[in-house]
């Protein structure tokens, strides 16, 4: 069987102010009809850019070389008019950001019918009828009403369904999906993947799936290309690659999946206790009146020395808000007691003496470091507050020590944050917390912005630091695998409330609530979800 899509010796280069970047270097791959192929790689692997190049969608500073053939027709160098006869009809794409991929200024219906009118010459009325059919096909609730809705009135998952409907309108032979579920919650991700699997079975198009997530690859694809730094490292059927990886990089990627468990701590004294923590936000509405939004609704925790409490939940569950409320960084109700002293309701200056022992690490390694300060200044800022008696030389020594503790070199302290990679920055942020020798560190999604392989190193670092300094963690994440690898006890949150809490093994092996079961299934047993969906089709 001849492949319908064949890339041969593709090169993609970008002209940047800092010189040429060779993003894709001589890569070849192919897709057979009806096949599901995954391209997996971390950021910077060129996995998206190679598809953009083939589809003529590179940004203006990019150049593509090589050959990209669709049914034996060369796509590179094809006139825009000819290319437009294929794009959006025979080859369609869905993208990572459902929030921005649709034009915010036009109704869903108008956007759906646009390619149909363009490619098939349908009348607006016929196209509208077909658009309604497609919305029903992708199982959007209230499809008639959604036709007249604007993108901002839909949820992320619904928008991605609209994108899929649009992708199916021309009865495509190949659907290129570029990280279509990365921006979505894990349960929505499972739904979207299930929908795609179902539709593929029904309609028989080939799917080229670009992702960084090995779990999806394993559950969803027939064949996989592993890419790194613009080149394919390894290629083969999914079952073979996962069972018997040949290339060192593939092995490393597979090994980077979070694993291991935290050693349980013997019964230790309670360090931090919170009861009935409630956070409400008021939003002003128009001229008069406001409505209240309860972000955290009555949470209790008990953190013992050396222990880690994992808090999981999807976006909007209030988990990050709770972390900040614990450290008295936002106004909240309820009581929080730290080392026998009540800290809830303390004002900024009264709270200051506790801050040394209560530290925080944030999600965004790009945003949490002050861009105009050197690394040394950043990590010693806390010392200025809490140990003002230290001399400059002492602070330097402490900074060097802290950098070493997080696996960086001491001489890096004169550099600026923008000179470091994401993983290094997160290490710097951790160094800023541990330099104060805190008791409790609240980690707010510390690994979410990082690639899996980097994530694995940061997890290892967090484990080492906990052992070395006897730290207690509150670990907040949407990533169940990471939470399972690091926590003693787990709290599952949804819409500000606790759904379930308990020891890590009990939660993951015998979840009590339906929501927890759904979460765990979507995260760890994607196969089952997809098989079930395929059976329904």
């Amino acid at each position, binding site marked *: 069987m001849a492949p319908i899509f064949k890339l041969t010796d593709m090169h993609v280069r970008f002209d940047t102010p800092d010189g040429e970047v060779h993003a894709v270097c001589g890569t070849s791959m192919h897709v057979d009809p009806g096949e599901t192929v995954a391209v997996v790689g971390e950021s*910077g692997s060129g996995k998206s850019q190679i598809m953009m190049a083939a589809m003529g969608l590179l940004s203006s500073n990019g150049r593509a070389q090589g050959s990209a053939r669709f049914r034996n027709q060369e796509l590179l160098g094809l006139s825009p008019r000819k290319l437009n006869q294929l794009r959006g009809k025979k080859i369609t794409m869905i993208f990572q950001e459902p929030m921005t991929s649709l034009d915010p200024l036009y109704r869903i219906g108008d956007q759906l019918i646009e390619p149909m009118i363009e490619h098939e010459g349908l009348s607006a009325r016929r196209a509208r009828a077909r658009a309604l059919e497609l919305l029903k096909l992708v199982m959007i609730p209230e499809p008639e009403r959604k036709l007249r809705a604007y993108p901002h009135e839909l949820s992320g998952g619904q928008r991605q369904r609209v994108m899929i409907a649009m992708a199916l309108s021309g009865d495509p032979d190949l659907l290129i999906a570029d990280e279509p579920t990365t921006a979505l919650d894990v349960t929505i991700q499972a739904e979207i993947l299930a929908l795609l699997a179902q539709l593929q079975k029904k309609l028989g198009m080939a799917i080229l799936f670009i992702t960084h997530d090995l779990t999806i690859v394993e559950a969803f694809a027939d064949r996989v290309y592993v890419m790194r730094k613009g080149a394919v490292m390894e290629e083969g059927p999914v079952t073979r690659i996962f069972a018997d990886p040949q290339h060192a990089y593939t092995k490393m990627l597979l090994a980077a999946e979070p694993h291991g468990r935290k050693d349980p701590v013997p019964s230790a004294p309670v360090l931090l206790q919170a009861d009935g923590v409630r956070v409400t936000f008021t939003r002003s509405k128009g001229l008069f009146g406001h409505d209240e939004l309860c972000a955290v609704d009555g949470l209790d925790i008990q953190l013992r020395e050396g222990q880690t409490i994992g808090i999981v939940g999807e976006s909007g569950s209030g988990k990050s808000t709770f972390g900040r409320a614990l450290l008295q960084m936002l106004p909240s109700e309820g009581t929080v007691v730290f080392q026998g002293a009540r800290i809830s309701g303390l004002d900024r200056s009264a*709270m*200051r003496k506790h801050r040394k022992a209560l530290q925080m690490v*944030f*999600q965004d390694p790009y945003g949490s470091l*002050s861009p*105009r300060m050197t690394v040394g200044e950043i990590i010693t800022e806390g010392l200025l507050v809490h140990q003002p008696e230290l001399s400059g030389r002492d602070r330097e020594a402490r900074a060097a020590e802290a950098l070493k503790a997080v696996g960086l070199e001491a001489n890096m302290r004169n*550099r600026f944050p923008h000179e470091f*990679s994401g993983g*290094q920055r997160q290490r710097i942020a951790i160094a800023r917390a541990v330099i104060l020798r805190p008791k409790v560190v609240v980690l707010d999604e510390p690994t979410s912005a990082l690639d899996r392989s980097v994530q694995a190193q940061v997890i290892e670092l967090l484990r080492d630091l906990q052992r070395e300094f006897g730290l207690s963690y509150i670990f907040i994440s949407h990533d169940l695998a990471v939470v399972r690898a690091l926590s003693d006890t787990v709290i599952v949150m949804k819409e500000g409330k606790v759904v379930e809490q308990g020891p890590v093994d009990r939660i993951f092996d015998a979840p009590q609530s339906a929501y927890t079961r759904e979460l765990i299934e979507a995260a760890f047993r994607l196969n089952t979800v997809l098989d079930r969906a395929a059976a329904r089709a």
Partner: protein
Amino acid sequence: MTDRTALSLDQEAPARPSRSLWATAFLRLKRNTLAMISLAVLIFYILAGIIGPEITNHHYAEVYPEFVKVPASLEGYPKSDEIPALAESALARARLDLGQITVDGGTIRVEASSSREIDPRVTRYLDRSDLFANSRIAETSADGQSVVMEADVERLHFYFGTDANGRDLLARTLISVRVSLMIGALATSVALLIGVLYGATAGFVGGRVDNFMMRVVDVLYSLPFIFFVILLVVFFGRNVVLMFIAVGAVEWLDMARIVRGQTLSLKNREFVQAAEALGVRSAGILRRHIIPNTLGPVIIYMTLLIPKVILLESFLSFLGLGVQEPLTSLGVLISEGAKNMRGDAYMLFFPAATLTLLLFALNFLGDGLRDALDPKDR
């Protein structure tokens, strides 16, 4: 994000020497030819404004009644072919028979004769004219009835010509540059001071205070600007310095909005929250985290505010509301030039070109700074 910007470099230490964002911005600015030319032009203007009026050979207020509206010229005034006639008229009262008059570079030779013996003091008639100096008898004939007088010709140079009152336009342009730059700096500093303090306070304190402070700004915005300025003129009369402090006090509104917006967004950035989690005091957060990061937009806005203020000053002067005689300003000169443009286009050209070039330089420098400090490719 797309893949191309964030190449995974986790284990690779940065290879190039460490640079702060300021240093990087400066390097970027240095690569911008237009901005660097503008910077050079601006430095030239500043030097011209400071030392220019001191080294020109005319005072900006000095009137030369005999040279009214003479066009711009590299040659001195009076022109060579006019000098003999001027010498004749200077010697008219000496009652001599004038022979040949020759002009040779900076000296004039006048042959004269009389039926009587000529008193050597006759040369004083030449000296009495502003044009000639150091007059002397070069040769005297044996009978003393004919002499050859020599005198140095003091020719005046008006490189930009003179205005309708016979004042040197170059000197007047230079003093205008000084006035414009001073006023630009003064009013901008005032606007900067008020705007940054007001905006930072509103943004940092937030809540109701912020709401109220910004309402005040909104209301001030809806007052007609020209009314404001004219009212200021009415109040402060002819005191230019006071008036431009007042103009600065009007121009702070934009600055306040920019700084407030910056402060608000910075306040929600994670690095500020991180500092709060460390227990850093408000003063420390402002000093180390907020102010250094608002500096970029403030500098950009400032370089664009200076030309705005200079333009405003010229505009008011153009209307006759600004700088008063004998001091002058580019606006006044342009206004005079516009009135005289039919016969004497040079009177419009030089001040207009001077102002335009200055504004160009400031705008290009501002644009260059914006590109350097605020690159989109982070």
